[in-house]
């Protein structure tokens, strides 16, 4: 009897797998498994192994016909004890947070007026937001370099106008880093905000006005709370990649602007220490995912 029921279960599971509905839902899951979860597990595995000359050690060793799992936490211990890593993580999070906040401050009015502009010019405005993507990302970051260096465009103009005597040192400072970060990530904040704000029902604002709310107050009491989902989506889209950003700090940042992306690069390619680099990456992922998980839990609870 039990065998039959198991067989039935298996065959029904198989049928479910093949039927269209499950197949369609299954494809993205499969994709996620192959392209995100498996690589992540490989990184996790490497982080727990040791470097043996040029090879990464295997986690499982065979002794007397029995497998023994050998986990090496040395990399994690090193991260936990060396102040450099701690400072770098903190500074990465700080730069990413600053980027997110500045992007939000610039993007919100941007998205707001886009959403309020006449319907027929909105596609054009949207196009203009995405226009920079048509040029290579690297090229655009290099362009900032020519603008910001001591004998660059901005300093030359300011000096020729007599506003300054000596060039302002902007390049390779936290300032140039922030300029590059905000510039690069701004569209990722504008787009979700615009999508959200353009859907805002104007009747809520009318109802607020009707109940005695000035337009300025109504913005804070109605528009901002109702665009919370857009603010969160935009902030996630900016914050998460900004934490691990490598190219912008490398090109625009100074030697003192610590970002975890550069440490990661150094571990991989200068020190050739793959377990260490992987451990750095795993800790970074945890740092980003933890607040997200907490937020999601809170969101689910407030909905229930």
């Amino acid at each position, binding site marked *: 009897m039990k065998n039959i029921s198991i067989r039935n279960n298996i065959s029904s599971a198989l049928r479910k797998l093949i039927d269209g509905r499950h197949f369609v839902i299954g494809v993205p899951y499969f994709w996620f498994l192959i392209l995100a979860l498996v690589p992540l597990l490989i990184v996790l595995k490497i982080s727990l192994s040791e470097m043996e000359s040029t090879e990464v050690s295997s986690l499982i060793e065979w002794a007397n016909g029995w497998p023994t799992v050998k986990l090496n936490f040395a990399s994690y211990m090193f991260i936990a004890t060396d102040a450099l890593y701690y400072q770098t993580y903190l500074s990465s999070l700080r730069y990413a947070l600053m980027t997110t906040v500045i992007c939000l401050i610039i993007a919100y009015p941007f998205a707001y007026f886009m959403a309020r502009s006449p319907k027929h010019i909105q596609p054009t405005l949207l196009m203009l937001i995405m226009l920079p993507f048509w040029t290579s990302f690297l090229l655009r970051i290099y362009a900032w370099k020519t603008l910001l260096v001591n004998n660059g465009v901005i300093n030359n103009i300011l000096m020729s106008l007599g506003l300054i005597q000596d060039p302002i040192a902007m390049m390779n400072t936290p300032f140039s880093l922030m300029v590059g970060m905000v510039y690069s990530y701004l569209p990722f904040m504008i787009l979700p905000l615009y999508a959200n704000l353009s859907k805002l*029902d104007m*009747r*809520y604002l*009318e*109802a*607020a*006005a*009707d*109940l*005695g*709310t*000035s337009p300025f*107050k109504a913005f804070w*009491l*109605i528009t901002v*709370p*109702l665009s*919370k989902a857009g603010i969160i989506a935009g902030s996630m889209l900016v914050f998460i990649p900004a934490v691990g950003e490598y190219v912008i700090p490398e090109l625009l940042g100074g030697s003192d602007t610590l970002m975890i992306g550069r440490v990661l690069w150094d571990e991989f390619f200068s020190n050739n220490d793959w377990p260490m680099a992987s451990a750095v990456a795993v800790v970074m992922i945890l740092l980003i995912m933890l607040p997200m998980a907490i937020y999601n839990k809170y969101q689910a609870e407030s909905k229930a």
Partner: protein
Amino acid sequence: MATAPKANIVREDLLRVEGVTKIFDGAVKAVDNVSLTVATGEIFALLGGSGCGKSTLLRMLAGFETPTKGRIFLAGEDITDLPPYKRPINMMFQSYALFPHLTVWENIAFGLKRDGMPRDKIAERVEKMLALVQLTKFAQRKPHQLSGGQQQRVALARSLAKRPKLLLLDEPLGALDKKLRETTQLELVNIIEEVGVTCVLVTHDQEEAMTMASRIAVMHEGYFMQVGAPDEVYEMPNSRQVADFIGNVNIFDGVIEEDEADHVTVRSAECMHYVGHGISGHSGMSVGVALRPEKILLSKEKPTGDYNWCAGEVVEMVYFGAHTTYHLKLASGKVIKAQELNNTRDLSYGLTWGDTAYAHWNEHAMVVLTQ
């Protein structure tokens, strides 16, 4: 019989609209030179089809639109140029516009907080409002957790919380289903009367206007066609459009033959009409004779007399439960509707498709329409 004066209390005018016109985009005349006064405590309905300008007029009262011409006065004060948030007027929006991120309690308290009312006073007022609309138990719910009828009551409580001088209702029952609408109509009127607030309501539903309002303005293409009490507008429409818009009506085209002080006779292609009241017209004038379906009696026997009856073939019968509407095709080809009460359980007239029936009515059933 001595007739008592209709209203012996002199009510002062709360709202006065003087020659208000609204032109959109320099061309479309949404509201065309409308004037009206609403007395304190009145429920005034703006009734009309879509695009008749009733909503635009309401939005001008609320302050969301500015009149192109004309002035609006509230309690003697010119409010034409006041922004909506400075007017002592509150509105119950069509499909309510309850703030989705706030609870029922916070929605009702929203306007009070803007006025800087002390906390304990706000709590007291909100509790009172919740009790008024019987939603005390739902104070902490969000709007999406409520049924349509409950949302409607929250919207009402929110618009009444500030004790406005004037309450505006935009299609107040439009989002409810028919059964709920009937009970809510009376509930709404009871609450409004209990609070004693003056009301202007906009609706396209003539039944809603008639049951709720003390006066109705029938709007068409931006102007008022007729203003009057519900029974006035229904029983004495002043034009074909009003007669046609409010309820069902049969209109006979004819010419006045006799024009006396106490009666007129009208000859139409279908029959002779004897109307038991005088009108301002003259013999030979072409008029319409309006006759409501429920005022027509049907019989199988030919009526005696020369006036106010005609014969026709039953071409359609529509059973409504409480009454049945018969469609009679007259000799002229005109189809009239007659509505008969089903006051016994067997269909009392015994009429069916193809039967010849005689429609007759008395001399006070008709209204002569001169325009």
